[in-house]
C-alpha cells in the first residue's frame, strides 16, 4: 500500500513538474531557446502573487488572476527587447542572455523582498491542508488533485490551441520553418513574442503551485529550472505531451526513489534523466546533434 501511495504522490508531484516545465518546453519547441531564467521567472510570478496577497488579503487564486496578465505582458516585453536580439546572434547567445537574466531577477528579488523564505500556503485556503484519507497508508491531497487537474487542462488547452486555431497553426509553422513562415505572410517576430508571453505566464502558474506546496526565496529559481529541464528532456525536447509524461515520470522516480531511502529521492530523478539522455542521444548521435 505504501507503494500505491508513493505512485499517487509521484503523479501529483510530476504534474507540478509538468506545469513548471510547460513554458520551458514551449520556448524550446518554438524558438529553440533554452531559457535558463525559467525557474526565476516562475519564482517572480510567485512573488507577484505574494505581493497581491499581502496588500489586499485576497485569496492566492485571485492574486494569480492579477499576476497572470502582468506576466503575459512581461513575457512579451522580454521577447521583443532581449531575446529577439539575442536570437539573431546564433544559438549560444540566448543561452547567455537568459543566464544573465536569471542573475538579474534573483538579485532584484533579493533587493525587493530580502532573503526571507515566503509561502503562499496560508492564502490558499482549504487547498493547503485538505486531503482524503483513503486507507491508513494512502491519502490524496486536495492540492495534488488540483495541480493534476490544472496540468491536464493546461496541456489539453495548448493542444487545442495548436491544432485548431489559426494562431496555433502559425506557431507550429514558425517553429518548423521560420523563414518559410515569413514567406507565407506570418510575422515570425510576433509569433515568437506570443510564445514567450504564454511561456512566462505559465511559468508563473508553476511558481504559484511552488508557493502553495512549499516555500520560496529569491534563490529558489535554479532548482526549479533543473526539475523543469529534466521533465522536458525525459519527455522529448519540444514535444508538448511528452513534457507532461516526462514531468510525471520524474515525479514517480523521486517518490519511488524515496521508498528505497529518503535521501535517494532527488538522486533517483537525476538518474532517470541521465538514463534517458544516454538512451536517446547515446554514443555518436550526441556529437552529431551538437555538430548540426
Amino acid at each position, binding site marked *: 500500500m505504501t507503494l500505491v501511495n508513493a505512485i499517487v504522490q509521484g503523479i501529483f508531484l510530476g504534474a507540478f513538474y509538468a506545469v513548471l516545465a510547460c513554458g520551458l518546453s514551449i520556448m524550446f519547441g518554438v524558438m529553440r531557446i533554452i531559457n535558463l531564467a525559467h525557474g526565476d521567472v516562475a519564482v517572480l510570478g510567485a512573488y507577484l502573487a505574494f505581493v497581491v496577497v499581502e496588500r489586499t488579503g485576497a485569496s492566492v487564486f485571485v492574486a494569480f488572476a492579477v499576476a497572470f496578465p502582468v506576466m503575459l505582458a512581461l513575457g512579451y516585453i522580454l521577447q521583443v527587447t532581449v531575446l529577439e536580439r539575442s536570437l539573431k546572434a546564433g544559438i549560444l547567445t540566448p543561452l547567455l542572455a537568459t543566464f544573465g537574466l536569471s542573475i538579474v531577477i534573483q538579485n532584484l528579488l533579493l533587493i525587493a523582498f530580502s532573503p526571507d523564505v515566503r509561502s503562499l500556503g496560508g492564502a490558499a485556503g482549504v487547498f493547503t491542508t485538505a486531503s482524503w484519507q483513503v486507507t491508513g497508508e494512502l491519502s490524496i491531497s486536495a492540492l495534488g488533485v488540483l495541480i493534476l487537474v490544472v496540468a491536464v487542462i493546461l496541456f489539453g488547452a495548448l493542444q487545442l490551441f495548436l491544432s485548431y486555431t*489559426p494562431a496555433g*497553426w*502559425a506557431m*507550429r*509553422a514558425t517553429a*518548423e*520553418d521560420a*523563414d*518559410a*513562415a*515569413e*514567406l*507565407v*505572410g*506570418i*510575422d*515570425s517576430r510576433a509569433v515568437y513574442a506570443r510564445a514567450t508571453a504564454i511561456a512566462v505566464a505559465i511559468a508563473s502558474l508553476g511558481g504559484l503551485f511552488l508557493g502553495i506546496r512549499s516555500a520560496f526565496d529569491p534563490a529558489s529559481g535554479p532548482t526549479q529550472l533543473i526539475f523543469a529541464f529534466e521533465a522536458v528532456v525525459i519527455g522529448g525536447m519540444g514535444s508538448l505531451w511528452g513534457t507532461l509524461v516526462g514531468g510525471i515520470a520524474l515525479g514517480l522516480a523521486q517518490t519511488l526513489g524515496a521508498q528505497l531511502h529518503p535521501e535517494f529521492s532527488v538522486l533517483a530523478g537525476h538518474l532517470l534523466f541521465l538514463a534517458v539522455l544516454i538512451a536517446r542521444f547515446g554514443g555518436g548521435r550526441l556529437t552529431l546533434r551538437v555538430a548540426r
Partner: protein
Amino acid sequence: MTLLKVDQLDCRYGLLQAVRGVSFEVAQGEIVALIGANGAGKTTLLRAIAGAHRPHAGSVSFDGADVTRLPAHRRVSLGIALVPEGRRLFPSLTVEENLRVAAVGNRRGRWNVQAVLDVFPLLQPRRKMPAANLSGGEQQAVAIGRALMSNPRLLLLDEVSLGLAPVVVDAVYRSLANVISEGATVLLVEQDLTRALRVAGRVICMLEGHVVLEGAAQSLDRDRVVHAYFGLGGHAAGGASA
C-alpha cells in the same frame, strides 16, 4: 503598367556577391522566366524580391512603392508570394493546415482552400494528411497552392520542376497554366530552357550575378540563349571579372 521594378540590386552572403547590380522591370500580367546556370544568383534574386534576403544595395519597388526595407510577411500582404526552392512545406501540418496558415487576412480574392483543391485535384484525398507524407509532386502542388492562398498579384516560382518526374512536371505546369490564364503576373526560375521559352513571354538570363541577356521569348533563338547561359562568346558583362 510596371508592377515590379528592381533597380541596381546587390545581394551578398558575407564576401560572396550573388547578385551584382541587377535591374529589370516586370509589367502587370507578364510571364517572365529567369534562367541561368547553377550559382547565377536566380534564387537569391527571387528571395530578395520576396523579402527573405536583405539586399546589400539597390532597391525593389512593387506597384510604385519602395519595398526594399519591408520584411517578407509585409510584402505578402501587399501581394508578393514566393514558392521557395525545395518547397519548404511545414512537415507536421496537414495539407489543409499548410494552406490555411497562408491565408492572409487582408487579401481577399479568388483563392481559398477549395479553389486550390479544385486546381490541384490530386490533393483532394490528401487534405488531412501531414505534408511530410506526400510525394514530391503533391508537395509541389501544396507549395504552389500555399502561395496562391494570399491571392498574390506577383507570383514568384523558384524551380518548381526540381526533383520531379517529367510527367509530374507536365501536370504541375498544366495546373499553373490555369493560374496564369487568370491574369497573374509571374516571375519564374526554370532550369529547363525549352519549357522556360514556351511558358514565358520574356526571358532574363543571368550569369555570375549579372543580367547578360534579356528579350521576348520568341525573338531569342536557342543558340544565343545557350551562349548567354554558359557565358560563351563574350556575352558576360565586363565588370564580372574577379
